[in-house]
Every structure is written in C-alpha cells, then in structure tokens.
C-alpha cells in the first residue's frame, strides 16, 4: 500500500518547486510593478500568545472534534480524525512549542496543513483569529532560541506574532 520512493520524490519535487517559487517572490520583496509584497499569515492563539503560519500551508480549518488516540505513538501525537473519508493525524502544537497542556473548548480549532508529498497534518490550537497581511518591514528574525519552531516575529500594532515554521513544528524531519 505504501507509495514507492520515486513517487514520493516526484510529488515532493513538484511541491518544492512551488514553495521555491513562492519563496523567490518573497525574497524579491516586490512584484513586477514594484509595489511592496505582503505576506499572508493565518493568526491563531495558544494560551495568551499570538502565533501565525503562512497561509499557503493551510488547507482548511475545522472545529475541534473528538480524536482517536493512537497507541504506541509519541506524546505530541494527539491522535487521528476522520475528515470526509480521509484520516488526518493531529499534532499537539503546545507540546512541540514547549507549552503546558491546555484544555479544549468551543473555540478550539484544528488547522489542517499541507505537508510534504500528499501528507496532511492537523495542529490543535485554542482559536483562529484572522488572516493578517504583513509587510516585510514588520518581519524580524525570532529572538528566543528555546522555541526553535518559531522562526520569525511579526509586529502587529502593539503586539507581536510568533511565526511558526510548520515543518519544524510538526517534526517532519525527525520522526
């Protein structure tokens, strides 16, 4: 049932192209007309903090629903949900970020992210607020070293948003 390595490589290759192209556009900082490019970030909350993930990586946002626990899996793997016939793994972002365990309530959401290949992974967050268009001027490298998944900080009025690298947060490389 598992797909062949070539197949996986092929899809990843395609996907990487898209990502690279997007990245190049961001690097350029401006589009063809010379106006400033904005980055689109999906802003969500965990405890009192504001976090964000690049919109390009988000496939959909669903309400929290009961998870099916998976035995023999690491602690940060909360379980799986069935989503229109698809089975999606849900990762505990809190534990990946080193935050204390939280509760789920009516505002809890699962953000379903595109991973590599055809893989999708959900992350559990306390709430989802808005899509914020951030200008490059407001972006700065992350300060703290302990939260390694936080790669950048974005100034938003008086507040700061921690921008998360989904690959690092989901531990795609080190499972």
């Amino acid at each position, binding site marked *: 049932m598992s797909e062949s390595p070539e197949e996986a490589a092929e899809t990843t290759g395609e*996907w990487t192209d*898209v990502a690279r192209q*997007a990245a190049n*556009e961001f690097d350029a900082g401006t589009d063809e007309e010379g106006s400033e490019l904005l980055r689109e970030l999906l802003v969500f909350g965990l405890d009192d903090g504001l976090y964000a993930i690049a919109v390009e990586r988000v496939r959909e946002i669903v309400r929290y629903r009961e998870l099916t626990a998976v035995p023999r899996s690491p602690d940060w793997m909360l379980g799986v949900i069935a989503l229109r016939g698809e*089975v999606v793994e849900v990762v505990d972002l809190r534990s990946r970020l080193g935050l204390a365990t939280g509760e789920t309530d009516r505002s809890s959401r699962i953000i379903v992210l595109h991973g590599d290949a055809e*893989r999708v992974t959900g992350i559990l967050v306390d709430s989802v607020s808005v899509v914020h268009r951030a200008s490059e001027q407001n972006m700065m490298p992350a300060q703290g070293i302990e939260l390694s998944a936080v790669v950048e900080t974005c100034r938003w009025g008086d507040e700061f948003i921690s921008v998360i690298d989904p690959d690092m947060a989901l531990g795609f490389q080190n499972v």
Partner: protein
Amino acid sequence: MAAKRSSRKGKKTARQPAKAKKKTQDHHEFVSEAEEILERMLEDLSDLQEQRHASTEVDPDLVNRIFRSAHSLKGLAGMFGLDAIGELAHHLEDILDGLRLGRISMASPAIALLDDGVSLLATMMTRLERGNALDDDDAEAARAFIAQIAEAVQEPVAPTDDVLDGLEIDSSLRRALTEYEEHRLRENLSRGRHIVLVDSIFDITAFEEGLSDLSAAVREIGEVISTLPSPGDAPESQIRFSLLAATEIDPDRLGERLDHPNTNVECVHHATGGASEVPATADTNAEAEPTAAAASQSEPTAEAAEGNPAEPASPSQVESPDIESLRSISETVRVDIRKLDELMNLVGELVIQRNAIASVANRLSGDAQTVRIGAELNKAHKTLDRKLKELQSGVLDVRMVPLRQIFEKLSRVVRRLRRELDKDVELEFKGADTELDKLIVEQLVDPLVHLVRNSLDHALESAEDRRAAGKAPIGKIRISAFQRGNHVVIEVEDDGRGMDVEAIRAKGVARGLIGENENLSRGDILNLVFEAGLSTCKEVSSTSGRGVGMDVVRSNLSEMGGIVDLDSASGRGTTVTITLPITLAIIQALIVRIGEERFAIPLNSVLETMAILPEQIGHSEGREILNLRGEPLLLRRLSDEFDIEGSSRDERQFVVVLGMGEQRLGLIVDRFEGQQDTVIKPIKGPIQAIRGISGATELGDRTAILVIDVSAIVADALRRREAA
C-alpha cells in the same frame, strides 16, 4: 490591490505543477494505449517462443503480428516524443522484420532479445505510468540494448537463391515477389510443400469479392504467398489474378477443392515428385489459358506489380476473422485504475453512510414514539443495503483481472533465467483465469517472481543431481491458483531438493530466532525462513539474493492482507502457499473495544471469537494460554499490547482467535461491537510506521478507528514467546 496581487501570485504558483500534470497526463494517455500493444506483443511472443521450443513451424502470421505491434508502438512513441521507447521499438521491429523475411533464422539468439526488449519497454512504461519522465539512464539502457541487438543480428545469411530457380514460374512473376513473399516461398519449399499458381478471371465490378472468396478458399488448403494481378489477356471489363500458394494437398486434386468459376490451378513445384519436371495441371475451366503463358506474354506484369505490388493482397489479408476480432476489442473499455479507485471510494462512502442510516433507524426503533418511523427506515435501509451490495460487487467485478498476465510475466522471467542459469525447467500454470483485484495483482508480481527465482536458482538441482536422485532430469515448477471463499490461493510448487528442517533450526538458533531446546513443530521451523536474516542459500547469486529476502515476500504479502505458508520435504520439493483476499477495497472488520478505544480487526484473519471465564486461562512460562479443543492457544491482551486501561480481568473475557498462515494467537479484548464493512485508509504520516496499526477507517458515526495489523501483532507475540 492586495487582492489582485494575491490572485496573480496564486496563478503563478499554480502554473508550474499544472504543466507537469499535463505532461504526466499525456504519458498516461501514451501508457494506456501502449500497454494494450505491449500486452498483445507479450502474448504473441510467448506463443512464438512456445512454437520455437516445440520446434514446430512458426506461424508466419504470428511473426507478422508482433512486427506490426512493434511498428505501432514505434509510431505511438514518436507521437508522444518518447525517443528512447521509439528507438527501442524500432530495433525490435528490425529483428522481427528480419525474422519474417527470413534474414534472421528462428534459431538466432536475437529472438531471446525480443523478450528482454519487451521487458525493458515495460519497465520504461511503468516509470511513465508513475508520473516520472524517462531520464538518461533509460536512454542509456536502450542504447546498450540496441548495441546488443546489433551484435546478435550479425549472422551470415545462408544463400538459398538456387531453390527458387527450380520453380516453373515466370521470371517476371518472380521479380514481382516482395522479399517477404520470396521468403515465404522458400520457407514453404523447405517444408516440402507443393507450390501452385491459382489463376482466375473476375468481373471488374465484383472482383474484390470474388478475389477474397478465392483467397479464403485457397487459405483453407494452404498459404497464399502472393496475390498478383496479371492484366495480360483478360477480356474487357474483366481482370485476371494469380495467386501463388503453398499447399500440402496433392495439386492434382486441388481442382476439386477449389471449385471456383474461371479458375485454373497449375502446379509449379510438385514436392513428392522431387522437382518441377512434372508440372501437373488441373483445369477446372477449359476456357482459361495456362497461366504461365499468360504471364509470359504479358510483359507488363512486373510493371503492374510494381505499381501496386501489395495492394491487391492487403484487402484479402484483412479478412473476416480480423474484422471480428476488431469488433470484440471495441467492446471492452480500458479504464484508468484511479478512476475505479475513485468509484470504489464513493461506494465506500456510501457503505459508511448506510451504516449511519442503520444506527439512526435503530435509535428511532428504540423509542416508543418513533418506533414506526424507525421500522420504515429500517425497511428502506434493508433495500438500500441490498442494492448497495450489488453496486459494490459490480464495481469490484470491474477491478478484477485474471492472473494470466502475471503468469505470462513469470514465464518470461523463467525463460530469461533458464538462459542465465543454463538450467532447464518445466513451468506449469494452473488456474490462469482466477481473478483478483487489479491492485493486488500488481503487487503480487514481485513476491511471485522472487519465489520462482528461488525455486529455480536454489531448489532445483542440476540435471545430473536429479538423475542421481532418481528424478526426471528436468525440474518442474508448478504455479496453481484457485479461489477459496473470499480468498484466492496461489501455490508455488517445485520438485527440487526441498528444505532441511534441522539445518533451518540450527540456523534459527544461531541467529537467536529460536531457543536451543525450544519445542517447535516442523511447520514452525520451516516458517522461520520468512524471518529477516535467515537465508538458507549458501551464496548470493545474481538471480536470487538481490536484497529481497523471504521476509520481504512475507511483508509484501501481508501488506495486502495476504498470508504465506511453506511446506517442504527434504529431497522431494517445496510448496509455498499464498492466501490473498480477493479485494482490498472493502473489507469486513470485527469492531472490538478496550476501555474507551475501539479497533477494527480485518475479518479475514479472524478464525473464531469466543467468551471465556478467567479460570479457563492457564499459565505457561509466564504467558497466558487457553486450552482450545486440546491445543494450547497463546493469549495476548490488546490492552497490554497498546498500553490501554481495559476492563477487569476477573470477569468474562472475550477472545478473538487470529490466524496468520499456520500461526494462531488469541487476542483478549473487552467487548465485541459487531461486524462492519469498512474501507481502510492508509495513514500518511508518522503513524504509518507504528507497528501493530495498519491504517484507519471511518465508521458511520464519523469517527476514525484504527485497524489492527494482525500479522505484526501475531508475529510479535510469537517472537516474544520464542524469546522467553
């Protein structure tokens, strides 16, 4: 502004993969068409090899057909710009052309290359099918192979021109023969057949019909080598044709057989007479002139033949049987397996929805106020259920393919190995019509090839050794397939040296797979060969031991929900039995509960279920066992396995008896929650790697439920026993 910009950005990023997709799409188109051609080639090639092997005369039509297939493939590849495939097909075409023209003899080693070439083509197509482009490696492989062809084809052609000189045919007629026709003439002469010239005059308005009737009649008594128009002395509005034919029937008696008006049969070569000195002429029609005369006096024959040499022949070649077969092809539809997968998924979703309806119906029936609606809904559900089952089996049926195609692949592999190992083997297939899900068939190829290789390379002895052991000098591998309930059983059987149980036990002990004094049955020991790291072959050859061991065979099969068993008698042979579910798409599962969690167990590995009392559980070496009809059954608690808090152990216990091949395990669960049709979804992610879980499925209540990997659970439990 921002919106506009972002939309443009979206377009930009989307373009790249879309283009890539277009290309793969093209390749799919190519592959689906080319596959059909390739399959036909394979079939024909295997017939050709058989005819050669049986050293009977090879049917010229067969060679022509393969030649045409290679030609179509070349054209198709050219259309899609697939140069490597086109080149390869072109060179195969060369070999085949050489064969049909007699430039290459049927004994040539070049013929063996046809098989390899077709395999190479198949490999390239598989790559395309997976959405990959052909790369330099493919081009290199094609080039290397073409070089091989060039080498093999360079063989001197025996000069055989003189044979034709002894024929009583006019030189202009002979000049009009194409190279192929000349070859066929020689071939028939060498087979000792009579050569006749059938001459006939037709009305110009109806000659096509008359000619094709006559051709068909001649074909019944032999082979039409050439059809030539002889415009010589035909009266106005009439046309004369000469058919050069070969036959085994005495030319003197041909007149009676070819009872056509205005037809004259002249023998140009009488085989039994030894030479052409006795040309026997049988006139069926007095008014017709002898053809030789007609041919000689009509000087323009050659010219006319040059003008349209093959045309008159071609319409008669495409005669009714071909037309019929064309029709039958158009009645089948080639469908991309992915479309069927989608359809199957839809049916799966419907099955899930049906389950949801059932649970609503039951809830309604349980309430006094809604009991009537509940009953009605239940009735509707029953009808839906029945129709759904029909739909399901209809879709499943479409996915079914006969095992024949695998068998053909296997016989090619064996032919190649026979050459490489210089070891003859008799290969026998049974049950080629047995059908299995296309996906399973695809995944079955590698394990089967491995097993057959193993048999040929290791199990079958050399001819001398076999004689010494009192066996037939040529070893035999038999592959038989048959259906048993919802499973298909495939047996790979050889009459080779068999396996030495003691040697395997010793190796198992040495590798730490079993304890030194462990009491194991013969079957248990034999099945150790499926463990990683237990290879019984002394040396690794290029044929076997390419990094794929029996353990991989087992894990490949268990991925498909299949099981494998082995039985062997030292000196007499080995039988490997593979049992596979007919389809993977929808499986019946037993839903069990431990604490709060539910799991699905594929029903095809459940032998029975039972409820037992705690006092029935015995203990042996610190393990729980149950006396099951006199046999000890090792027990394992799913709650321990998955570290989940289960219910009390002092109450009644529920046991699922699991069977994987010969191995048995009793799995203790808290409760049974019934059976359900489920569609197993693989999980793409880290969970995939978790041992004991093979995937997940969705139940009617929209929750995900994990599917237990029975083979892993059973293997682990038994290994733990062995380690203890």
